[in-house]
């Protein structure tokens, strides 16, 4: 079995693991990220609303509130450095009754006390001007609420980390953790990765990983959130994020509507505690709950415009029915094992702040000498559909592969597909192509472009196309 030794090993290539990797790559350290799936953002990082939260609904003085508001402030600069999309669209929490209005006013006060800026109550007229399709008599607007593409953000963090020397091990599930002579060994059955310091950013699996390292006090529960994605045709129905009044009985923030960077609307999430830490199914009951929830906010939403469903698992430190919402846990266990437990929403927003905290802990044990070659910049992939006509013309002249549209729904060209396979992380799955190019994310869900992508693989002499790594082959054999 191959063995490699690093200063720091990070378990989990979600947005937090990749943020930590990028942050630590600023220093002269050898760093590995160990991931059980075939790509980054395979867990909750790739299955959330893509919202850069303001944090005004988080409990006062919680880590969630503090890290979220700081993360929100820092996000624009990170987005610039990493060439990641970011749009400030505003968060509207809509109400109908006088009682709702009173609650919104309270929410506003609490948000302001927590440091949120620009909060204000919109009267019906202004609400209707801004969001004509939304049902409601007034709304609390949080103008700092923004959206990003959570896949693209995590990919960007990981690619930048990789460019700065971080090594990624995909398809390596950590099954055993041992400690000997001041070094941890993370054993996946395929590779042994040794490290002085281990960071546990395994998301919903973090409790299990902590246990492998001998820490049994962190039970992580999975709270599943299901989502629906609407056809781009409906994108004119909202401009900002639309939330209902916070549901008092069920807790959470309720089924809401979020515009995505890609031009869709997503509906969700639901909240349901489940026993399995892997079960990202969708269910008939929740799908109808989502449709109802969405139509409550925007009655024009039609279930026939749903083009995709997915779900993600929140890593919860609390159990179903507990009044306490739970908070992030960042702790160092003796022997330099850093636990990041219960990193659920607003983890996407808080990730850079969490990464800073990890850096501080690492700095107490290892000397942090600046990596002079560190480059904070990473460039995004070319998106043909976003180019001007003249640029398109120019590009096709240079490379005719950009003149062949492979994915008709999202207008992704053959050139982009081939380019996406040359990614610094070495990911070459169908899902990997999908999240890097958007091919297959449109209304036909890949029915037309998947066979074409298989042809490109044949042309490039790549043996097999899988959906998401081993055991997920698209086809089983050639016919002749």
């Amino acid at each position, binding site marked *: 079995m191959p063995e490699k030794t690093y200063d720091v090993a990070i378990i989990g290539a979600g947005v937090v693991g990749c943020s930590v990797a990028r942050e630590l790559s600023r220093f002269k350290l050898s760093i590995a990220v160990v991931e059980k799936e075939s790509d980054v953002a395979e867990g909750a990082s790739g299955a959330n609303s893509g919202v850069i939260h303001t944090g005004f609904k988080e409990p006062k003085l919680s880590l969630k509130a503090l890290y979220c508001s700081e993360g929100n402030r820092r996000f624009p600069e990170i987005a610039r450095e990493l060439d990641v999309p970011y749009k400030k669209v505003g968060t509207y929490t809509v109400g109908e009754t006088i009682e709702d209005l009173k609650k919104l006013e309270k929410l506003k006060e609490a948000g302001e006390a927590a440091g949120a800026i620009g909060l204000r109550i919109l009267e019906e007229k202004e609400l209707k001007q801004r969001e004509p399709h939304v049902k409601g008599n007034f709304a609390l607007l949080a103008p700092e609420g923004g959206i990003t593409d959570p896949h693209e953000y995590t990919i960007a963090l990981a690619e930048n980390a990789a460019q700065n020397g971080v090594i990624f091990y995909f398809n390596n599930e950590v099954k055993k953790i041992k400690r000997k002579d001041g070094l941890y060994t993370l054993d996946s059955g395929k590779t042994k990765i040794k490290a002085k310091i281990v960071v546990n950013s395994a998301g919903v699996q973090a409790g299990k990983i902590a246990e492998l390292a001998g820490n049994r006090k962190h039970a992580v529960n999975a709270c599943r959130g299901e989502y629906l994605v609407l056809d781009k045709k409906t994108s004119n129905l909202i401009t900002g994020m639309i939330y209902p009044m916070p549901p008092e009985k069920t807790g959470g923030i309720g089924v809401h509507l979020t515009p995505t960077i890609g031009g869709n609307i997503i509906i969700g999430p639901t909240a349901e505690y489940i026993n399995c830490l892997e079960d990202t199914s*969708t269910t008939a009951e929740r799908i109808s709950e989502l449709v109802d929830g969405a139509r409550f906010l925007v009655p024009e939403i039609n279930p026939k415009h749903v083009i995709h469903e997915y779900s993600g698992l929140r890593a919860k430190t609390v159990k179903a029915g507990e009044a306490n919402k739970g908070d992030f846990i960042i702790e160092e266990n003796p022997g330099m094992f850093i636990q990041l437990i219960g990193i659920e929403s607003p983890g996407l927003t808080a990730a850079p702040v969490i990464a800073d905290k990890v850096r501080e802990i690492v700095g107490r044990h290892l000397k942090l000498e600046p990596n002079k070659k560190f480059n904070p910049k990473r460039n995004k992939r070319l998106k043909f559909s976003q180019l001007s006509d003249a640029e398109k013309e120019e590009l096709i002249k240079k490379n005719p592969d950009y003149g062949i549209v492979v994915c008709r729904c999202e207008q992704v060209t053959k050139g982009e597909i081939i380019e996406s396979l040359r990614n610094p992380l070495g990911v070459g799955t169908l899902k990997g192509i999908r999240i890097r190019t958007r091919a297959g994310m449109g209304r036909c869900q890949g029915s037309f472009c998947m066979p074409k992508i298989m042809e490109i693989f044949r042309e490039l002499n790549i043996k097999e196309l899988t959906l998401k790594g081993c055991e*997920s082959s698209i086809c089983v054999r050639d016919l002749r």
Partner: protein
Amino acid sequence: MMEKDLVVIGGGPAGLAAALKAREKGLKDILIVERGDHLGGILNQCIHDGFGVEIFKQALTGPEYAHRYIEEVNEGNIECITNATVTELSKDRILKIVSPMGFLKIKAKAVVLTTGCRERTREMIKIPGTRPAGVYTAGCVQNLMNLGGRMPGKKVVILGSGDIGLIMARRLTLEGAQVLAVLELLPYSNGLKRNIVQCLEDYDIPLMLSHTVVEIKGAKRLASVKIARVDENLKPIKASERMLKCDTLLLSVGLIPENELAEKAGVEMDEKTGGPCVNEFNETSVEGIYAAGNALQVHDLADWATLEGENAGLHAAEYAIRGVRGNRKLKTAAGNGVRQLVPQYYSGKQDLLLTLRVSKPEKNKNLIIRDGDRMIKKTFHKELIPSEMIRLKMTKEEIENTGGLTADVEA
């Protein structure tokens, strides 16, 4: 900017026929834009026979059928570009085309939309469960097998007994896969009878009517599907649920006309057909833009798409040459028991071909075309089924002086 008399978007059966008809009428500068690497559209992946029965009185394979038209297109020196996608179409018929030959901008005197249709997906019909590899639409698998030469799986369940599903059941069986069952949500199949006999019965593949897939299981590759019988409201019956182990699920659950270009050009659409609203000239609400084939309405036979394409091509040519347009004065309507009806408008000044589908199967019923309370035409049908399009020829004399037409299945 390049200028063309006619641009036909889509080189399938309807598009080829439209271009040929326009050429026959004397139109010179015609361009066919095809997104695939060959002309013929979906016909190229339909290697089974049954094409051409109406037009050539002969059962051809899809590629053979396409070949007849492609040869004529080549002989007629009609310009074609393949691997080319129209990304934009404006109201004033300016097209933007992405092709390996370059990024093209063309102003067309007339445009025929023959962009075909797409398949409904697992996500559209919202089958719950996980999202593993092995869940594909039937047409996608037909492409993988017949054009790509690849086998998608070994143990297959097919949901939907439309023709593509039936044909793929046979195709998969012939290549060595085990097709466990074809499930159909409705109490009757929507496929042609000949396909049920030749594709299922001949191979002992069970057709399970009033059944559906209620859950998809498997983390990486499909492991099993949970199936259930449905009640008269098409709701799954919990007590009838059972698991079928399989590695592949094929979906043949309906087709949707592809009209993103038409919609962006501001063309009036029909909720029921999913295609543009046209008059008897196959003219849409936007001047100079015509529609035909599966982009206009989903057909059962390629032959019908061809004939519709010819009509669109004929009138697009008349418009491009002489500026002749139809009108949208009078309306047609799908009445009782009728799901959809094309064309949506007519002039009352010439013969009219009505194409329609009923909502549910009926036996020994009259189909009535009326203008308000006045009966215009009555035809008797031993059998009416939604999967078979009814083509009803109305003469000029019959529809003269009508103020609109409604089609009903007699109660």
